[in-house]
């Protein structure tokens, strides 16, 4: 008799077995929900931190000083040229008078800097960047614009930002991978417990001549359904927890400076990641769990 794969049958077998082994299915769903909640919460914190970090990065800028030979209108006219350079987010024109006022307010009370003539200052642009890691090339491009005398930046701060962002990104990825591996292990063990009761069933199938894949498929579908269900429960719980925590932060007197991102714009992406992860840990856990029982 030729081997046929009736996926409708596998699906129904997997679906039915969720209810015939109700307690174990409940335990597996609980584990999936817990794992996704921990992983999801950590990821959302990382996303918020990354967003805050990117806001801070955007505040970082360098200054381009303009040739003294240019009038203020001519200097102001360079703005379009500078903003046309790739990676320049915006250029803010500062007149020499504004620069003087700013300087004096910075050193207020210091007699050394009082009463300096305004012609020692230059018109200038504060230039904000899209990506701070490309500071050097952007600065060189601005420096090459006719009318720009020289530029001044603090590359060590830019490098510091880049290093911190890279390290934070790497740590976040590693932690998510570890959490995923731990989740897979826990789910596999939970499903293994569920499968232990069914080893007799598997042994009978094997003795009748069932192939390993025939035995495995219903378990895979069962894992997929449990994973999907767990993902949906975890998604709505995550949403609720996120909104509650966000509200607590914004109404707090001490930590209300933290800007929490709204959940709704991220909701579809979070749901997608949860469902995908639920599928992976549900089906992956099932396959890992029954491996031992297939050796009959």
């Amino acid at each position: 008799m030729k081997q046929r794969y009736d996926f409708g049958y596998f699906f129904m077998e997997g679906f039915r077995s969720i209810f015939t082994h109700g307690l174990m299915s409940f335990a597996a769903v609980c584990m999936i929900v817990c794992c996704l909640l921990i992983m999801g919460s950590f990821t959302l914190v990382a996303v918020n931190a990354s967003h805050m970090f990117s806001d801070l990065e955007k505040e970082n800028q360098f200054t381009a000083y303009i040739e003294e030979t240019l009038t203020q209108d001519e200097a102001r006219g360079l703005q379009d040229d500078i903003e046309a350079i790739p990676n320049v987010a915006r250029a803010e024109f500062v007149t020499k008078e504004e620069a003087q006022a700013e300087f004096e307010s910075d050193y207020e009370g210091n007699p050394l800097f009082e009463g300096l003539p305004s012609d020692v200052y230059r018109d200038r642009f504060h230039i904000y960047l899209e990506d701070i890691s490309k500071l050097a090339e952007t600065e060189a491009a601005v420096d090459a614009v006719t009318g720009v005398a020289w530029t001044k930046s603090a590359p060590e701060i830019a490098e510091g930002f880049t290093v911190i962002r890279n390290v934070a990104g790497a740590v976040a990825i590693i932690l998510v991978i570890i959490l995923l591996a731990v989740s897979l292990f826990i789910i596999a063990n939970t499903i293994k417990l569920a499968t232990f009761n069914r080893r007799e069933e598997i042994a009978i199938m094997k003795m009748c001549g069932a192939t390993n894949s025939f035995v495995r498929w219903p378990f895979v579908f069962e894992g997929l359904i449990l994973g999907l269900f767990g993902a949906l429960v975890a998604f709505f719980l995550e949403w609720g927890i996120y909104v509650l925590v966000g509200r607590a932060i914004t109404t707090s007197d001490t930590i209300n400076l933290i800007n929490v991102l709204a959940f709704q714009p991220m909701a579809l992406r979070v749901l997608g990641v949860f469902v995908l992860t639920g599928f992976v840990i549900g089906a992956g856990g099932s396959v890992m769990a029954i491996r031992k029982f297939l050796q009959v």
Partner: protein
Amino acid sequence: MIRLIDIQKSYDNGTKALKGVNIRIDDGEFVFLVGPSGSGKSTILKLITAEIAPSAGRLMVNGYNLNNIRPRQVPYMRRTLGVIFQDFRLIEKKTVKENLVFAMRAVGASPREIRKRVPYVLELVGLDQKGDQLPSEISGGEQQRVAIARALVNNPQMIIADEPTGNLDPMRSLEIMMLLERINELGTTVLVVTHERELVNRFSKRVVAIENGRIISDETGGYYNNETTI
């Protein structure tokens, strides 16, 4: 056809279960494999069903050379066998009919084949009226009939019964043995492992006796003698 040629089997703990066993069972035969507990009967069955591999010797089962069979070929070899166990091994949560459907599904049978074959086999074992009952709702003898039906449902070349009457009273045991004899008459090879002397002696069949891992007698129309029972 089954051929065991100078088969030896040693387990990891050092136990020598089989010490050079030679058996040939041709298609259409009915054979009793008898012997006391620990004589090596179960090891022979496990070798035939490819649950374990021989330590030495050659082993052929229904055209498959089990000495170098690939793991992915094992299910196809097992489809040529129907195995019956002493403890029936039915799935308690499935009805009689569902147990048979399950066995047919396991080998990839189509719904059409299943609809045709299951009622025929249930009728053959005399359980056509019990198809919708759970195993727990029928007697031990009937449960063993279900196990026989399950073994038969995929139309194997050979039925292997491991102590099929071990859990049954003498009357039910005789009925089961007569059913196996009828199945054999329909063309299926039957190998029955048992240590029930009286039952064996009621049927004039080939009797292979094993003791301490060696074949001590092999007689067609033979008896299970007191000398071999210990």
